[in-house]
């Protein structure tokens, strides 16, 4: 399989970006795909390893060597079939996944890894272009019904799997449109919304029913769902945002990133005018939080036309290479520079925000910070130590809080009578994804806490298997094994 000496002949080459100055003029995706023959070369770099660690690094267990080989041989249709065996939505992961597979790629031990994610994206895009992705409804219905609450990646994956098993699936979404964080969290420049819509169309054609503005626990009664459906799966996400308990946190101009991003997404989607968004135009923007959401805020702010964008991260600056304690093939915490970072931002690490400072009108005008140091001791939690004399004040009129999420909202747990764990996730294990209430299952961020989209899809798929088994006594849906690489 593959080209035996491909990795010796070809260098890693990823798709390129339109230059930052041009791309920040709009909200469109800005990647420039590789030509087909170059993609084939990239596929040829795959070594068809005796142990494809990538396959373990991928939470979905994607059959990476297999589709790489097909791409190398130009057999795109077969590649798409292989890809869809383990991944319901490669067009999402192909754009948004941080690609733990590539960190686990064997070639990555001493060379640049294979561009697995980009190959994935090109396979699925080719498949859509060629019209290979069409509805494939089940031959036979089981007569069982399942409610899926939440239409993010976990919910959609679970819905499609359950529908394939022949169950009648209804998806409940409290927002106006389907997609969850995919739609409301991810900016268009990372994934345009048509990508979601074309997939939804397929799902609908396969027979999945979508109910929007259907807020379970509010306008849809939980008890009624319990009565109407044979099983329920909760995929509501980890939506409780972390806040920052310091003076001035309620000032005008201190904004949760998700509010900022959601409104902007609605604007780009044509659901809202620009006047209604939280604008960063001409402002000095400080984004607190160095993660992906923070990065999205940076990209969006620059597109708004911010005056200056600054980014704080309380953790110390990671190394560019792998840290020693996270050797290959584990997922390393290393310094990442995203496309949004390239578009203009100043990043500061080991910075702790101490206070928001208001102007006379109660509007934010500045931030007070101090530099910190982390102290690591074996067997103890890392300690934070502020460094005296490093206090500093920063001019700022918009502070975006991208501090992560603390867990699931309590509504569903209360309504259905579900146990939660100490992290305020709904309690269930990956053994069966079942909550303490029979017939009610949970998957995705709502169970595991905030995580990657690829984990959401994986959980949705796994949970679907267990629901199917719960309903039918056995399940023939695919189930991945437990050989995921652990985090160290």
């Amino acid at each position, binding site marked *: 399989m593959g080209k035996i000496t491909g990795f010796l002949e070809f260098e890693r080459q990823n798709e390129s970006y339109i230059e930052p100055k041009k791309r920040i003029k709009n909200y469109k995706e800005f990647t420039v795909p590789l030509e087909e023959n170059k993609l084939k070369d990239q596929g040829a770099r795959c070594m068809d390893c*005796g*142990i494809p660690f990538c396959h373990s690094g991928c939470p979905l267990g994607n059959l990476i060597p297999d589709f790489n080989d097909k791409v190398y041989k130009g057999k795109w249709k077969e590649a798409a079939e292989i890809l869809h065996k383990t991944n319901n939505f490669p067009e999402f992961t192909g754009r948004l996944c941080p690609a733990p597979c590539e960190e686990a790629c064997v070639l990555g031990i001493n060379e640049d890894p294979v561009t697995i994610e980009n190959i994935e994206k090109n396979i699925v895009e080719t498949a859509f272009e060629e019209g290979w992705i069409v509805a494939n409804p089940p031959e036979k219905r089981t007569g069982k019904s399942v409610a899926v609450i939440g239409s993010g990646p976990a919910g959609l994956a679970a819905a499609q799997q359950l529908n394939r098993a022949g169950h009648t699936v209804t998806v409940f979404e409290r927002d106006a449109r389907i997609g969850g964080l995919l739609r409301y969290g991810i900016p268009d420049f990372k994934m345009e919304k048509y990508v979601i819509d074309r997939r939804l169309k397929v799902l609908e054609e396969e027979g999945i029913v979508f109910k929007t503005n259907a807020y379970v626990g509010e306008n849809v009664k939980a008890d009624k769902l319990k009565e109407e459906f044979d099983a329920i799966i909760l995929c509501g996400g980890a939506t409780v945002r972390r806040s920052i308990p310091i003076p001035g946190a309620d000032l005008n101009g201190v904004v949760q990133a998700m509010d900022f991003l959601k409104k902007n997404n609605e604007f780009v989607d044509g659901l809202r005018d620009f006047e209604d968004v939280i604008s960063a135009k001409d402002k000095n923007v400080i984004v607190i939080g160095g993660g992906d959401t923070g990065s999205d805020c940076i990209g969006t702010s620059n597109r708004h036309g911010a005056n200056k964008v600054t980014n704080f991260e309380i953790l110390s600056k990671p190394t560019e290479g792998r840290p020693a304690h996270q050797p290959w093939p584990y997922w390393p915490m290393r310094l990442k520079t995203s496309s949004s970072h390239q578009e203009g931002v100043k990043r500061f690490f080991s910075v702790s925000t101490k206070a928001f400072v208001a102007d006379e009108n109660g509007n934010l005008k500045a931030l007070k910070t101090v530099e910190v140091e982390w102290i690591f001791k074996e067997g103890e939690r890392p300690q934070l130590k502020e460094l005296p004399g490093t206090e500093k004040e920063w001019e700022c009129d918009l502070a975006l809080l991208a501090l992560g999420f603390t867990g699931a909202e309590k509504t569903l747990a209360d309504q259905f009578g579900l146990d939660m764990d100490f992290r305020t996730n709904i309690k269930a294990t990956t053994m069966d994804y079942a909550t303490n209430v029979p017939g009610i299952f949970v998957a995705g961020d709502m169970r595991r806490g905030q995580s990657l989209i690829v984990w959401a899809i994986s959980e949705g798929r796994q949970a679907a298997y267990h629901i199917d088994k719960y309903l039918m006594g056995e399940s023939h849906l695919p189930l991945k094994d437990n050989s995921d690489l652990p985090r160290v």
Partner: protein
Amino acid sequence: MLKKQGLYLPEFEHDNCGAGFICSLTGKRSNDIIHKALEILVKLEHRGAVSSDGITGDGAGILIDIPHKFFKIFCEFELPETGQYAVANVFLPRKENQRQYCIDIFEKEIESQGLELIGWRDVPVNSEILGEIAKTTEPSIKQIFIGKADEKMSDRDFNLKLFAARKITEHIIYDSKLSEAQYFYLPSLSTKIIIFKGLLKPEHINEYYLDLFNSALDTRLALVHQRFSTNTFPTWDLAQPFRYICHNGEINTLRGNVSRMFSREEIIKSDAFGDDIKKIIPTVLKGKSDSATLDMVVELLLMTGRSLPEAMMMLVPEAWEKNPEMSDAKRAFYEYNSCLMEPWDGPASIPFTDGNYIGAVLDRNGLRPSRYTVTKNGNVIMSSETGVVDVKPENVEFHGRLEPGKMFLVDMNEGRIVNDEEIKEKIANKYPYREWLDKNLVHLRDLSAKKGPILYDEIDLKKREVIFGYTQEDLNTIIRPMAQLGKEPIGSMGSDTPIAVLSERPQLVYNYFKQLFAQVTNPPLDGIREELITDISLTLGRDVNIFDINDEHCKKLKIQNPVISKHDLDKIRNYDSNPDFKVETISMLYEVNRGLNELEVALEKLVNQASKAIDEGINIIILSDRYVDENHAPIPALLACSYVNHALHKLKKRSQVSLIIESAEPREVHHFALLFGFGASAVNPYIVNEIVQKQINIKDVTDLEYLTAIKNYNKAIGKGILKVMNKIGISTLNSYRASQLFECIGINTATVDKYFPNTPTRIQGIGLREIEQEIVKRHRKAFRPNQTNLDIEVGGDYRWRRGQEKHMFNPLTIAKLQESVRTNKASTYKEYSELVNNQSKSLMTIRGLFEFDKFDPIPLEEVEPWTEIVKRFKTGAMSYGSISKEAHENLAVAMNRIGGKSNSGEGGEDQERFYKSSQGDWRNSAIKQVASGRFGVTSNYLTNANEIQIKIAQGAKPGEGGQLPGPKVNPEIAKTRNSTPYVGLISPPPHHDIYSIEDLSQLIYDVKSANREARINVKLVSEVGVGTVAAGVAKAKADVVLISGFDGGTGASPLTSLRHAGLPWELGIAEAQQTLVMNDLRNRIVLECDGQLKTGRDVAIACLLGAEEFGFATAPLVASGCIMMRVCHLNTCPVGIATQNPELRKKFKGRPEHVVNYMYFVAQELREIMAKLGFRTVNEMVGQVQKLNRNKAIEHYKASGIDLTPILHRVEVSEDVKLYNTNQQDHNLETHLDFQIIKKAHQALFRRQRTHLKLPITNIDRAVGAIVSNEISKIYGAQGLPDDTINIDFEGSAGQSFGAFTTKGVSMTVHGNTNDYLGKGLSGGKLTIKVPEGCTIVPQENIITGNVTLYGATSGEVYINGKAGERFCVRNSGASAVVEGIGDHGCEYMTGGIAVILGDVGRNFGAGMSGGIAYILDNDNSFIKKCNSADLNIDPISSQEDENQLKVLIEHHFVATSSPLAKQILTEWESYVLKFKKVLPEEYRQALLRLEEEQLKLA
């Protein structure tokens, strides 16, 4: 013989031997012949063995003419004239009452045959001289004399009646349940000859049988034999000679032969015997050796009226199939007989006699030495070695050897030697065989295509792929490469998946069987390089009574490659124009939804249908699993095939029909091998045909027509089957068919006994019910609704894949192991070992099923320290060449740091590594391997070893050789291997100096001579019977025996071999321990274990089962950075381990401390277990199986049937029998001739003073030169002494391995002749063999040295003033040699050096020759026909350079030997030079060009 116990099965006993005869051509009877014959035996004593009591031999005997004169004197009753009575020594029960019972029965049968009992005579014996073991089994021996009823009775009738009386008596007594029934035995019963034999050492025969001392005893001929049995339970009756033959070698095909004999007897009829025939059969008695069995069949064939030479031709045919030179009559004879008898395949040298003829045949391979000498005073002496009887040089008329497939015959009545050609032509022309064949034998290729009716459509291919368990791997990794390239797919690294019975995935029945393979007791073959002796054609149809000789026998259908296409099968199915053939198809489907017993019911139905078909005259049955559907599932084809085969045997109808399998199941070589092995005569894998069609359609298979692709696939499978056959040493499919050379693992005895009878299965497992469950699982899956994704599974058997088959090494275990050794963190190692141990427990391995038991904790500090324990640790044999220099040296340095041992592998070693570095690190591999390629095996290499390992087999591919392709042989590697850069190197499947156990003993003697301080280690692979082999190895005086698991790694191996040959070490170690302890041989030898040892727990279990040293290979490689890419065979290892690419080698990041850390962790884990169990030292722990128990928690539907008690069996022995190594082997080196040389050559050795010596030599002086060279290497290294420093002239016949490993500065001349292995591993010395003064033979017509000359020689010169035997210059890589004629397979695998042959050349010259040059004096322009010339350039001498080289060598030859031929050639040089041909391998030519270019570039 010992009873079956634990894992020990008595049927796996092996024996090999020394044999010979002497006879008088003049017909003169003398007493002297007996003494000479016994002298032969004594001189062959080194080929036999002695039991643990030190006295009991494995058996010896002598056959002579009936000494009528002697009997006349010593019998107390009147004897008729000679020839008018028969006499025999009769072995009888020891107890009086039982003895009498046997005598009564025998006498009664004699009477009822109408014969006359003349009398009984007590045989005087001296039991005092017997060993303990022999004494306990000594029978009571009497002589019986039987006369004709009346004088008119013809000799033939007399013989028939004697035979009937004896046979019937044997059956009655053996069936009698008499406790001592087994004592009853007649070594012979003849009017011509009598046999004296027993469990004796050769020198004791005449001390035991006092008659033999009597000078009144005389004979014209004497046949002698002595046995080397693999263990110490040989018995009196199995001593040889047998009634008509004796045998040196092994009949590999025995099981198939025996089962086919039984079916022959279904239809046996004879006018001579009438109804008695029913009482005479079965011909073959159970529990006898291969040789005894062959003898019984020979006897039966003689009763059919065939002569002894004819019977031998039938049973041991020469390789006629691919020999265009053979006369048509002879070919026709062989082809005709192939329709009624399959070859009894050797290796075998079989002396035979019926008193009228005495002779010998050699099997088609010619793997046993057989030399003969005719003396001027009319004696013929034949034996495994020359020089066994003293013959004065001037008395020699002729020195000859028996050639492969040829017969050597003396007609005692005519008093002359009848040559092979004459006797065979005579026999071949007795009947019009060619005419019979032309009229009756139908060839598949001649059948015309004819369409039959199409019944109905098959369901969708995808669904059927699911039902038959196809995976993506089957399609892409197995089928596609075969269809595309016609070659079997190759892989690397070991197999680390669970065996079938421990796998949670449904398995095909095939996967519960493992291929057996040859090790030590018989050699595997090389069907690629020695293709001319192989054949896979089969004939189908009904068998006919073997007593008849007529054209009925060849009314058969002949198929050249019995892996047939759908197209061919249709031709057979619809063949209706010949009334001799009636074909019927029987469905192998069963109704899957009818409940659980349906499979069993269906199998019975199948047999009934087959039986009924036979009654209706059908003679070809096609068992077909076509047309599966929702209600019909396939009966596993192997199950159906084997059951029908055996059930028809039981119904006595098997001989009337041939079976063809039409099945969707078989896809890989192993499947086909099994089907043939269990009785099929042809197989059509129809779904593979469809899959290939699909692959062409979707362009997975490119640029090929459908039929070509199918042909490719069938060809690849055919070649693969050949390889599987070759592994066990079988060369024709005709003999392999129904031979069942497999071991079952994981199916219970009840099921095996019913459906696969006579197949060993030792740990129980699943039954028919579970087999059915597996079928149902697959079947259901195919018909499930809502299959949006009906795609077949990925597979994951060959490469790890998520959610597919489990592998011990997977992302997590590798990541943890590497992390732990790099950070030296014990906690991370613990995570690793827990992962491995736990996954092992979750049904990955047999050891996983064990738990430790009977704890008796002691403080950890009391356990011996880790530094002591790691001295027992070794790294596996991986050659420099298969892995990079960096990786290789890394292991060596690491192991030297901790006092463990690394292994050079078979690639030699750069001598720079023999010295420590200034920093104290040492790159020397403590273990130096000697494998079949003998790369770089020199005196200096062996001298620098602590341990020398003889690799008999390798876990990943037991029974196979290897190949290092030219491009990988870079100059550095070529240097360490003493070969030419860029010339490919082949390791042959067998060691060409080990075809049997006594050969191994010889090689051990050779290498022990080459380094007396080194331990000699023999590496075996686990399989049923390995315990017996290990006992043989212990008796052959190895110091260490290593039992490897089947799962060990490799740099390249056919995928079939990786998974399907060999067994887990748990079975092998336990069996070896049990057998060695039973024989009280355990204390003499160290038992070592390897094969995917990964953790301290693994080591602890191996130790408790009996191992005391431990090898690791994959794990230390992983510790060094290996990530199991499994691309070792592609040279693209991305972490710089299994590659020679300089760029990739830079990526190697392993360090010695990583390996040290790993060994430390494993030792610590072991110590913790030892502390828990209460062992302070490893020695205390060895073999303490009571500390193991079956893990009760496992309740998987398949694994729950497993019974581990045979593995945990503890042999009952007295307390003083040790369970671990306590004693040293006695190698008997003190009598070695070299010590005389050393004594006399002090000045030469220490002062380099030129010395001349003169010494007598005999055939018991073996490996002469090896010890002297060892002493020289110790002082001077590879450089040796200046040329001709030590010069020795020997007179006589030199023993085997003369000049072995002889180094520079030693020149030895033999005035006389030499035996096999002349100049083995020659390391720079000079050897001359010349015709002694006074001898009048014509050198170029006489054999002066034996087989396998210059095996693995690296430098030096040899001059041979006469002819050499088979395989001259095999794997020579640097020596130059001049000889005056050679046998078959000359210059095989040669990679360097020069061979000059001034005379006859045998067949298959230059097979696998990749380097070096040969010059052949081609007098009659026939050379090209004898040459395996595909890759060779054969040209006249054209350049002056070549001419000079040749001439100088011939001049040297003349100077060394005074050869008259050399003189003549040199005198008439101008005309002779035109007759020479130069043989230059193409690969070598190109390599030389490339080297020249590189030189230019450098300049």
